């Protein structure tokens, strides 16, 4: 929840930046018995955002599949050693530059981090570079 609020703050700072935000909510904790409530959805209120409910965690599975299929493509370093079929990608944020397409595998981000709340400084740097382009 703190991650969502921190992201919204960063988005507010860059209100004019042409940007699209894909917010994917997925059940991970035992308390995640239902889709996000109106209150939770309201944590990210930026109009550039679109929100998704991924009950079966298909996106997480797809990212893990891509990472394991072609590890050299992604700048994950030592983190990759910890990635196996049981890995759940969550509390995760990534920034993708203009121009990249998502075909079969997730494209390579210019920045990624987790947990989200501790990755906002890196995201801000990435957004600052984006606004200078």
């Amino acid at each position: 929840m703190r991650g969502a609020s921190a992201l919204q703050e960063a988005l507010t700072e860059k209100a004019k930046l042409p940007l699209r935000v894909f917010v994917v909510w997925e059940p991970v904790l035992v308390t995640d018995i239902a889709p996000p409530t109106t209150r939770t959805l309201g944590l990210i209120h930026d109009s550039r955002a679109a929100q998704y409910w991924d009950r079966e965690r298909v996106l997480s599975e797809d990212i893990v599949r891509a990472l394991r299929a072609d590890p050299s493509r992604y700048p994950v370093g030592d983190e990759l050693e910890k990635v196996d079929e049981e890995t759940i990608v969550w509390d995760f944020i990534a920034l993708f530059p203009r121009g990249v397409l998502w075909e079969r595998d997730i494209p390579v981000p210019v920045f990624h981090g987790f947990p989200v709340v501790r990755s906002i400084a890196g995201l801000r740097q990435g957004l600052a570079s984006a606004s200078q382009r």
Partner: protein
Amino acid sequence: MKKQSRWRKAALALVAVPIVLAALWLAWMKYGPRRVPAGQPDVATLDASSLQSFRDTFSEHRDEDRILVMLSPT
């Protein structure tokens, strides 16, 4: 006998009322209406059948930088 029956009813109510309330709360949590903030599209469900459409939507916005964030709702 009458007194015992009254106690039994009270005990039953004490047990049943919280269970009914919990069931109603759970149903509300699971199936209650959700509203997204103004200006956003409705919440979309992501599953195996819509994953490619999600990728396509991501690619359609190629003229913008894009952020992907994956979170747990609680």
